[in-house]
């Protein structure tokens, strides 16, 4: 209504008051959709004059034309200049001969010479005037000429045409005055011819260039359109589509190969993400269901403060477990993104291992296990102390939970003679079958045998992520019986700062 009010004030109340006709197409959802559609169509259909190839051709063409123009300009000046000089030379020579004739034979012979020349001139470009001391014409085909020595340009106004002359005036002995002239028309003709030729050549170059531009542009456009079509399908969800690769190795082929590689990577990441999302959806549903059942049961059966309190406490505990799972997932994702490498610093690894062993001693004791340590003191590693602590804690926790009750757990840390360190956690429990070893490092993966024990199935996934972040090689092996988890830690160069920054670069974990 706002624009209409303004029209009303302007004294044309009838025009906009018809409903429906004053609607701005962009204001209605339908109109907007229609606009968007046409816009998309316009954008999607490639026009050959919008292609980069065509624009580049045009630019190239423009520059070529400019060069041609400059060149023909120079040629033009040079040619016509030469013709004019020739003309002047001719006039000078002729004039010289006539002056000679005047000296030798007097004005009479000049008159004869002039008449002979005029008679012999078929082209009609030679002009002469011999004027007496009183200015009267003695001979020649010029009516009159200024009596001044030297070069000058003369214009003859004929019946239809105006003739331009290049004339040389020379005073002769005896008071007579000689003017010899030549028509400049041939030079002008030459100029005109040159100009026309330049025009033709330029036009041809322009036409050919345009044609070439169109051809090249269309070729490039076709290839780009083919790539665009495939990528559009990928965008629409058909992630498996790939660009057709040709034999060649031009920039388009290289680009196509690169795009295919990127698509492969994207597809891989998407699959991994989907796997994780599925896992999360599945594994979070279980505790959420438990929580719901608990609350449901409390709602139906709980009587009295104590029962309600118990139900609430149970629900809180259930929530905490859920939050723990979320925290662990988030942490794994964060570690996997590698964002933490900037915070690497040297720390006493021996001390960390010792502390982890101490922290896990009570549960081991509760299961009647001996938690032994064989730790070389004073070993310094570079990394994220908190993450390494948590990684070790997860490993020992795993060994305590899944090791044999009453068994032995060994935590060892030693430097290798060839450099670097090796850290191992071993138990004498049932171990992990060789074929299942890669699987247990995945999120939420739990061996069937382990399902009865409490846990989120995320502990070893975090271990794998932290190991990868630190460039440690993680191997699960057979302890005969039991599981041995071995971490090979790369050597730390003496300079901690250098080692820290080396962690940012492509470390051994990428090779």
């Amino acid at each position, binding site marked *: 209504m706002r624009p209409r009010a303004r029209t009303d004030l302007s004294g044309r109340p009838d025009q906009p008051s018809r409903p429906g006709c004053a609607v701005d197409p962009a204001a209605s959802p339908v109109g907007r959709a229609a606009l968007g559609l046409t816009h998309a169509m316009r954008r999607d259909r490639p026009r050959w004059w919008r292609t980069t190839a065509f624009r580049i051709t045009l630019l190239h063409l423009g520059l070529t034309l400019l060069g041609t123009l400059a060149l023909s300009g120079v040629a033009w000046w040079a040619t016509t200049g030469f013709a004019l000089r020739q003309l002047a030379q001719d006039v000078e020579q002729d004039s010289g001969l006539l002056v000679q004739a005047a000296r030798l034979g007097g004005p009479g012979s000049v008159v004869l010479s002039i008449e002979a020349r005029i008679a012999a001139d078929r082209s009609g470009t030679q002009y002469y005037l011999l004027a007496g001391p009183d200015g009267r014409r003695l001979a020649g085909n010029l009516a009159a000429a200024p009596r001044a020595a030297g070069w000058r340009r003369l214009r003859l106004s004929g019946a239809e045409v105006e003739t331009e002359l290049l004339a040389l005036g020379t005073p002769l002995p005896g008071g007579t005055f000689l003017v010899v002239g030549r028509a400049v028309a041939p030079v002008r003709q030459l100029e005109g011819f040159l100009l026309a030729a330049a025009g033709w050549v330029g036009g041809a170059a322009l036409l050919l260039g345009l044609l070439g531009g169109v051809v090249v542009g269309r070729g490039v456009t076709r290839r780009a359109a083919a790539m665009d079509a495939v990528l559009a399908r990928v965008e629409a969800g058909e992630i498996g589509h790939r660009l057709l690769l040709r034999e060649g190795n031009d920039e388009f082929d290289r680009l196509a190969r690169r795009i295919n590689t990127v698509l492969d990577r994207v597809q891989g990441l998407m699959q991994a993400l989907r796997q994780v999302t599925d896992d999360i959806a599945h594994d979070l549903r279980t505790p959420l269901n438990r929580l719901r059942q608990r609350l449901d049961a409390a709602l139906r059966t709980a009587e009295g403060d104590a029962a309600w309190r118990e139900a609430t406490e149970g629900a809180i505990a259930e929530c905490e477990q859920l939050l723990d799972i979320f925290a662990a997932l988030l942490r794994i994702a964060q570690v996997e993104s590698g*964002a933490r490498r900037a915070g690497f610093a040297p720390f006493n690894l021996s001390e960390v291992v010792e502390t982890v062993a101490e*922290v896990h001693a009570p549960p081991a004791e509760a299961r009647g296990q001996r938690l032994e340590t064989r730790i070389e003191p004073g070993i310094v590693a570079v990394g994220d102390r*908190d993450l390494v602590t948590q990684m070790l804690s997860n490993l020992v926790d795993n060994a305590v939970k899944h090791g044999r009750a009453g068994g032995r757990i060994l935590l060892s840390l030693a430097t290798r003679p060839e450099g670097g360190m090796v850290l191992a956690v071993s138990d004498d429990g049932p171990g992990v079958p060789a074929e299942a070893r890669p699987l247990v490092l995945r999120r939420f993966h739990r061996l069937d045998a382990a399902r009865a024990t409490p846990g989120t199935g995320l502990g070893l996934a975090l271990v794998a992520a932290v190991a990868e972040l630190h460039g440690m090689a993680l191997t699960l092996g057979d302890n005969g019986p039991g599981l041995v988890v071995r971490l090979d830690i790369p050597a730390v160069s003496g300079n901690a700062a250098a080692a820290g920054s080396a962690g940012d670069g492509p470390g051994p974990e990428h090779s």
Partner: protein
Amino acid sequence: MENPGACLHPRPRHTNPYGKEWSPVPQPVGSRNALEIWVKILIVEDDTETADYVVRGLTEAGHVVDRASDGRDGLFLASDGSYDVLVVDRMLPKLDGLGLVRALRAAGVRTPALFLTARTGVGDRVEGLEAGADDYLGKPFAFAELLARLNALARRPPLSGEPTVLRVADLEMDLLRRSVTRGGQRIELQPREFRLLEYLMRRAGQVVTRTMLLEGVWDFHFDPKTSVVETHISRLRAKLDREGAPPLIHTLRGAGYCLRAPD
């Protein structure tokens, strides 16, 4: 009978909201430490529900609480240094928590600050402490944990004049000679037990949560879900307790531990 809330500062007869003895009605202030009965706290938190929860709990615990809902108001209120402790969310409108604490520290305001935040990712804690905060607590949190940490922050002794000998009742710890005696009798402690006792003695009379101990004594910034704290506390108790003498280390169910002289 032992009063499990006795250590909770500032209202001795209170315990935390999860404890059975929790009472929202203010109780008469105990005779001990009459000058420190309450502390003035500023909460900078944009989530109304969390802010309400914290304000209610702290008010019921007898503290004076002000609140600000964005970083700029928080900075304005805190800049005169009139608060004893600040509770700051990290993600705040207008000025984020890190910026707030940095600005305060740059302006020379030394009020202890605790980050209470859902940002508990790798490195976030370090970043928070580097910005000038004194403690970092991730959401979700147990109220008892927040209360204990705030009390510890508000009553933190000044850095100057570090004592070389800590004393609680007849228990004495010589920090230079690394020796502990009770009633003049020497007690042999393992290094970890010594660190644990030192941590407790420095916060004598205050509630110390399990998480605080894991962080302060073991340098563990996550919960390994083992009974290591409980085991060490009971081992320490066994070493400290003597026939006929009152116990010094008290367990507060649902809250933590407290080392204090017998009443």
